[in-house]
């Protein structure tokens, strides 16, 4: 990251770079992303409680063993 230097009278100041707010020690399983809901919505063989995302609907889906539970972005 390029940081503009700051100047004081006769002193070169050291810029303070804030620490990232994101904790890089945490990991989360990558959610499978489909281009279209139609690619998976008729499938019944997903492991129970699989969570996926569809780009065409912008929705999350959880497979409950017999149905997809759907979550909108709201």
């Amino acid at each position: 990251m390029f940081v503009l230097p700051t100047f004081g009278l006769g002193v070169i100041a050291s810029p303070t770079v804030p620490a990232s707010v994101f904790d890089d020690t945490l990991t989360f399983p990558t959610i499978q992303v489909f281009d279209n809901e139609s690619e998976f919505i008729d499938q019944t063989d997903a492991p129970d409680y699989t969570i996926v995302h569809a780009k065409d609907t912008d929705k999350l889906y959880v497979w409950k063993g017999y149905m997809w539970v759907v979550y909108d972005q709201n």
Partner: protein
Amino acid sequence: MSTLNTTTSTTRPTLGAGDVGKSYFETNSNKILVWDGAAWNEWNRDASIYPYVNNNFSGSFDGSADWIDCNAITDYHGASQMSLSFWWKPTNSGQGPSIGYRLAAGSDWGISGNNVILRSASGTDGILTYTPPNDTLWHHYLLTFNAGTAVLYIDGVSESLSGTLTYTTLHSQTADFEIGRLSTLSSANGLFDEVALWTAALDSSNVSEIYQGDPNFDLSTDAGDYDQSSNLTHWWRLGDHASDTSSGGGAVADGNTIGNVENAANPGTNDGSGTGATYSSTVK
């Protein structure tokens, strides 16, 4: 494949400040939970999709002489238990549905506007009042009757019923069950979908599962908290069952007059015959 851990609303784990970000799927409420270090953040379900049940049509009733006649249903003559389920979208805010069995005043059971009716004789005994939702959205209605106790669930929540009910069985004589009117008492103005009857009083867990499943819930198969498929006697899908037809025998299409709507729970028995009502592609 990414899968969520599961919990229920009564067994949510006790987490601490070091558990930030732990996520669960709550199986009885269908919520996604994320622990923020002090409390659960909850994402509510917005819809449900069954891969093997299509729901593309509903039935439209104009409030004047539109109905579907399903003939006499002997399973419920004098019965001590019954559940009636359907989805309803009124044309005007605050309007209740019209549906049920009616031989004459005092020999009727069903829902008429803002009244639940469960009578075996004329009079006010068996007329219970409730307040329909004040909007024009789709709502799930499920009425249970169990030896003199009536419960009306709307969207999975038990509603307040005012009035007196002393009858412990349904009326025992022969009359037709009709979708869209309670004989000459009232006519529905709105959309019906997925009308079903059981010879048992469904409990709140079953009701919640059906409501959470949306109109494409497969009532013929036990799943989740739903375990009453064996008591399902009638299920009219209003355009989505294989043998449903338009008037004259043609294929189902938006705007066509309803011809035959098959009882998906027992085809050939109590198939419904439409009068005036039309198919609509407006579904929840």
